[in-house]
């Protein structure tokens, strides 16, 4: 059975509703809203709660909590006088590891963390404590990233969805976040709490109005404006709506319910429930890019990428299931056109994804494409394409520390065997006559881009 996200929600991060709900009416209402949300999660049949936490900022990609039983006592940096927050919950380690693998498949840097005493963040602790006090659900928690932007956060959400589907489970997704996040910079009495400014309040209400209509993707596309209008740049900018909309397929096809909206030391705290529905609230107002794989190199400056290759490997403690597999992306080969790396190392072998004849960087096809945009066949140069194809294979191999000489097996795909085989074979032999890998040649209907030849390669090191 395919897993699915049956419910999404946003919840506030500050500990007041958990620790001192009786001291302020609004904090009490937020507490009640958490309780209502918990009941709705139970009713939805969800087995696992996924938390995207804005109060867990990361630097190297994203981290996933993989300790099967995180247990500690948390104390808030600011609100330590309200009390301590002990936690003891169960992580859905299967889903977490599947998500980590999906992250890597989609080109993201990802790490699972399984260390005794790892500091679970305030947003996650508050969510877990109020939504899952009896450990009825298992939990999966992912960090945010201080440098990540929309494309990376969106790809993270797609990897999450990959893992959820694979798990076969019903899952609830929670974003632990503030709306406006400006707090009072002085100590206040509980009865003095209110949203810090009228402007913050107006924006918060606008966001809630859209969410109530289920217009999640519209809100996601306003993330940058929201950030500039009502968010203090603490550690991370405003990105949870990108994640939440991503796991919901980037649509407005949701039913929204605002369960509470109150001030938490000046910040905007809301509990909002979103359930998938067939009836769209309407078309999206805009349509932004829809990245499937994160191929962005945010290292704009010279850096460790100089060697032309990035590898991402599982580095979690007590988890060696991924030690021998690493996704490899070469910066000198044409960009992948789907959710796959250029190559994957497994044991002593290197498996390459299908390599075509596009020119790296420009995507141009030497000698021209084999069909135009309307699918009409064009004349093309199979010799030039074969050369480029093999050069691309060479680039990926060398980026991964292998070489053409170490190719063991090749599968050749040609779109026109009668027309192209002889010329192809001639060019091929220029490279491989001495290397002599095993080879299989197939005629196929078409390739995803307008190229005429593609190679599938397995090499050693």
């Amino acid at each position, binding site marked *: 059975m395919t897993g699915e996200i049956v419910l999404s929600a946003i919840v506030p991060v500050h500990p007041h509703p958990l620790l001192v709900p009786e001291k302020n009416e609004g904090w009490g209402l937020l507490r009640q809203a958490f309780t209502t949300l918990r009941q709705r999660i139970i009713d939805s049949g969800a087995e696992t709660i996924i938390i995207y936490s804005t109060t*867990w900022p*990361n*630097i*190297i*990609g994203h*981290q996933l909590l993989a300790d099967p039983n995180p247990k500690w*006592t*948390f*104390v808030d*940096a*600011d*609100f*330590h*006088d309200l*009390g*301590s927050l002990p936690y003891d919950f169960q992580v859905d380690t299967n889903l977490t590891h599947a998500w980590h693998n999906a992250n890597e498949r989609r080109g993201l*840097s990802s*790490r699972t*963390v399984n*260390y*005794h*005493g*790892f*500091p679970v*963040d305030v947003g996650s602790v508050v969510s877990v404590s109020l939504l899952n006090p009896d450990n009825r659900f298992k939990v999966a928690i992912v960090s945010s990233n201080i*440098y990540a932007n929309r494309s990376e956060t969106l790809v993270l959400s797609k990897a999450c969805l990959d893992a959820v589907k694979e798990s076969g489970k019903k899952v609830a997704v929670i974003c632990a976040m503030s709306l406006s996040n*400006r*707090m*009072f*910079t*002085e*100590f206040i009495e509980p009865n003095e709490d209110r949203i810090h400014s009228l402007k913050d309040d107006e924006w918060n209400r606008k966001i809630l109005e859209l969410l109530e209509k289920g217009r999640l993707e519209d809100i996601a596309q306003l993330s940058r404006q929201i950030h500039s209008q009502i968010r*203090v*740049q*603490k550690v991370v900018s405003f990105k949870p709506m990108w994640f939440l909309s991503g796991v919901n397929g980037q649509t407005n096809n949701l039913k929204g319910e605002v369960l509470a909206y109150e001030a938490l*030391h000046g910040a905007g705290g809301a509990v909002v429930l979103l359930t998938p529905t067939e009836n769209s609230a309407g078309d999206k107002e805009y349509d932004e890019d829809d990245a499937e794989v994160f191929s962005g190199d*945010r*290292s704009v*400056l*010279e*850096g*460790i*990428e100089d060697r032309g290759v*990035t*590898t*991402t*490997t599982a*580095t979690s*403690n007590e988890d060696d299931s991924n030690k021998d597999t690493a996704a490899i992306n070469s910066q000198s080969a044409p960009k992948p056109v789907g959710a796959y790396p250029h190559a994957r190392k497994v044991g002593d072998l290197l498996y390459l994804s299908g390599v075509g004849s596009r020119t790296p960087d420009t995507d141009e096809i030497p000698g021209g494409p084999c069909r135009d945009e309307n699918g009409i066949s064009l004349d093309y140069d199979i010799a030039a394409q074969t050369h480029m194809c093999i050069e691309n294979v060479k680039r990926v191999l060398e980026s991964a520390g292998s070489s053409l000489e170490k190719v063991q097996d090749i599968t050749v795909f040609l779109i026109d065997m009668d027309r192209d085989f002889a010329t192809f074979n001639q060019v091929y032999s220029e490279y491989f006559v001495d290397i002599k890998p095993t080879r299989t040649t197939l005629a196929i209907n078409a390739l995803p881009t307008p190229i005429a030849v593609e190679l599938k390669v397995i090499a050693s090191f």
Partner: protein
Amino acid sequence: MAPHPPHLVYADNPVQNEPKSECGWESLRWAYERMRANLDEADYDVIVILSPHWQTYVGTHFLGLPNFKSKSVDPIFPNLFRFDYDIDIDVELSRMIHDEAQADGMVVKMMENPDFRVDYGTIVSCHLTRPQWDKPVVCISSNRANAYYSVEVMQEMAAQLGRATSRAIEKSGKRALLLASNSLSHRHFITEPEIPEDMSAEHITSHHLYLWDMKLIEMMKQGKTKEIFDIMPEFTEQAVSESDGGGFSWILSALDFPTYPAIVHGYGTIIGTGNAVVEWPAEAAANAEVALRGD
């Protein structure tokens, strides 16, 4: 100035928690060694540290119980840093600084929850400065006024806190070692090499950050700290500096803007960020004062 890269202390590896990162970041560890050697000659009663990793938005906070004992696990580099700490607090001096700052109109609070975990910046800087852990510590939080208002507001608050700190120390009669736990430029790499200690991958993130760091270091060496204070907004913004946490401004103010040369024990990068271990020796301060008075 005592930066806190966890990379310099691989905590869990040897049980005694001594640094053991093989083939990495030696120059910064040697810098700390040199500073420790100098400090061994100095006689001091207490360490007063401001760390940017105890981040408070509502005022400035001080650890207010005599002892904190727990395990610190770095939230960003848990693979590198897990440290059992046992830290004694000079609550008396903490409260004196708190009271001085409060009397001056600052928003302050004592942190008296025994379950509180001390931040990893404090622990790394204290451990690298005094691995014996035999001096009591005053831990001051980093108020994020930079995020809420501006670098200028942050600086004014940090300077005010610096003055309160020095007044309180004077009144206490204690000899204090001040630590500003921050790096200089602070743009990280966003990937980590497969072996974290792979030094072929370690260098400053970009040349312009290096130039900023060198400019600041040169100014510290020349005793131009008032001038540093004046360019702090540009530096903080353009070098994405960890001075945004206020520690750098605080220490300069608490030392009353040294005009004597700082000793730069070393400079190195940690996943692309620029770190310097810098000492303003008390002896030089005393000499400078004598020269000023002319006796």
